[in-house]
């Protein structure tokens, strides 16, 4: 399984890191999981700079990106990645507590691949994380449908 791409988790809250790791662990994904604690570090990782200059050359299978981060926030990271033609293909999933509409709309405008509001229920959270891990390791899908009238309206 050495050819599996890593999964990058960008999260500042240690509780969320632990819970997310527990969920990914339970899904029995063999991918290596890299963790960055803020947006600046995440960009260093992605561009192989600073502490991450010597990291594994493969791009992550998916970036699980928290919205609210110290230094450089999630939307800024997203904008940087999706604004760079060489980096644009890296799938990014916004993983966030926020239910603010504007974040969601802004994320899709920036080209996010998925936007997941962390459910309060642990079961739901586990399922969401597992789905994300498995799904993004295999194939891409268009962003989920933002509410609108059913298609033939």
């Amino acid at each position, binding site marked *: 399984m050495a050819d599996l791409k890593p999964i990058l988790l960008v999260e500042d*809250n240690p509780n969320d890191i632990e819970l997310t790791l527990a969920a990914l662990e339970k899904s029995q994904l063999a991918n290596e999981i890299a963790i960055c604690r803020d947006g600046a570090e995440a960009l260093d990782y992605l561009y192989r700079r600073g502490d991450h200059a010597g990291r594994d050359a493969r791009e992550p299978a998916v970036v699980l990106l928290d919205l609210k981060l110290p230094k450089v926030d999630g939307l800024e990271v997203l904008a940087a990645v999706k604004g760079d033609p060489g980096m644009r293909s890296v799938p990014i999933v916004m993983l*966030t*507590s926020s239910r603010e509409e504007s974040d969601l709309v802004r994320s899709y405008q920036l080209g996010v691949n998925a936007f997941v509001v962390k459910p*309060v*229920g*642990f079961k739901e959270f586990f399922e969401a994380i597992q789905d994300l891990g498995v799904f993004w390791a295999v194939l891409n899908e268009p962003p989920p449908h933002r509410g*609108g*009238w*059913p298609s033939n*309206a």
Partner: protein
Amino acid sequence: MNSAARPLDAAQLTACDREPIHLLGTLQPHGFLLAVQEPDLRIVQASANVPDRPGQPGGEVVGRLLSAAFPELAEAVAGGTGPDRGAEGARYLRTVGLETASGSRLYDLAVHRSGPLTVVELEEATAEAGGELSLDALSPRLNAFVEGLHRAATVADLCGQLAAEVRRLTGFDRALVYRFDRDWHGTVVAEDGNGVLPSYLDLRFPASDIPAQARELYRRNRLRIIPDAGYVPVPIVPAVPPSTGAPLDLSQSILRSVSPVHVEYMRNMGTMASMSVSILVDGGLWGLISCHNKAPRRVPLQARNACDLLTRVFALQLASKERSAEAEERLRLGAVGGRLLGYMTEADSFSAGLFGHSEDLLALAGADGAAVVVGDQYRLIGLTPGKGEIQRLRDWLAGRGGDEDVFATDSLGEIYPPAGDFADVASGLLAISVSQTSPNSVLWFRPEVVQTVKWGGDPTKAATQDPAGGPARLHPRKSFETWKETLRGRALPWTVPQIDAAKDLRAAILGIVLRRAEELAALSEELQRSNKELEAFSYSVSHDLRAPFRHIVGYSELLRSREGDRLSDKGRHYVDTIIEAAFSAGTLVDNLLTFSQMGRNALKRVFGDMNLLVEEVRRKVMRDVPAGRPIRWQVGSLGRVYADPVMLRLVVENLLSNAVKYTRGQPDTVIEVGRAPDHKGEAVFYVRDNGIGFDMAYVGKLFGVFQRLHRVEEFEGTGIGLANVRRIVERHGGRVWAEGVLGQGATFHFTLPERMEAR
């Protein structure tokens, strides 16, 4: 302002008004006239009564030079002529003696300009003329008169003194001071007499007695005299001189013949001599002094000059009295207006400020009633018509158009007949409109004042057609018997200062309304700012409050699944309870955020098919229903609506999931979704179930935030779902309501405005 109170027959007025008095071309015979032309003062017209002089028959003066025909006059006339002279009317130059065929005679010489000609008039001097009427002799009396005027307290006093003094100077049987009202009817306001002629005091004379062109002559030529109404008019020859090609304009002539109608009028009044002096105040004709004598009577020039002087002094005094009375009133009303402005500034709205100080509002216009109208709100003060009557009156006022700031009438019924029904409270109306765009206004009312007017003869018979059938001639009435008339539907007139005070109030209200609008704009900015803050607050709550709940749930879950074996049953129960509590707290935060978003987010309305939406939501709701539970759905035809789909989805979701939730114990569940017939531009939808229903006593609590009608063990929920429903529907401009019977089911209705009504 309102027009004539007494409709006079238009044909009569027109006939009388068109008589060209100043072009009659004849003179009274107590003097003669010469019209001379520049530059050499050649006589081009003369009256037919020029006296014969030695060697010069009177009839042969036309064509001669004035200096040749009347060398005695030449120097005086030459000094008093010229195109720039005589604009103010005839000027007396001096008394001259002329040699005539019948001896030496004295004449008072007057000169004035008439078009291209200089008119020289020679009035025979009266025998009385002499020392007693010289300016020196008159001076003490004039002084005494002026002193008396200063002391006069009222306008009536002033007029009384004038009448007495004029009669004393002229020796007429009766002197009247006659004042015009706004319709040009005249009222005798003061009288002095010796009893030979009847008293006319307080009598009113119709406007047609002194027609418009006569009034204009009175304004231009202040003093007129008719020594003998039985005179035979003297023609002027030639009537039209070849050098000017026009009849002589006698407007300023002192000898001018008067209208035959007027002479007849005098005869009908039983007077043979008359004199009238115009009273001009600020250039306008205020009234007349009208003197009469039963027998023919000449008044010497000096006496006439003295009367003219008295009258002008009187007019000045009158103007200053009226002006100072007006100034006092303005000051008083200004103070009232200032107070009202203060009240309006302090009050929440201008109308509240006015209404709260009704005494001042009434005092401002001297009204007995007032109405302050803002939109559909009518605040009535004192004596007013009913609300419906005011509403129609206001509509009529608005429909009149016109851009005047203020509307005033003292006889509303004459221009707005429905006002006849409430003449007793509102014969007078003063109204200001506060805005062009909205119908806000302030109206003041005055009650009817029934007036009895004594006319000098029946005013409807002011003039009659010639009984002999002459088409163009008019004959004045024969009888001057007092004729009483009762005037109804009239209020005391609004004074100019009162009307101006209303105008000022209007300006003040507009200023206040404008300032309020600015304050509102500032407030709305402030609101927007605090709304932004609230948004930021919600945002941080959504992150920072929600996360700990997730963590509690997550770690408790891990504890249960990974360390559960090492816990006792009690320990596992504790963990379950922690999970449940944290989960519900987290859900509560979610719901609260949704609720606040509903109020903040902009509506993005589009047309959509309601049946498709309901079907989509129905399927979603059914996913949470246990497989074994049968639910019978009856969904009618719902049509299309114009709404924000995201928000409307929440409404439907809440209603359908509630219906499913509260029918849980019902073995045979029926849920009906339908559309009732449209009502007043609204689409009406309902969701009906046959579940546990609710007690209508609590219907008021149903749509409140955190209001629950059941214990948590019975039915889960945070009590925010229906609050969301109401908020969303109301933001769309619709309504929600519910009906229920405990144990039998509930029906929830909501409406959405049709597109036209939607804003």
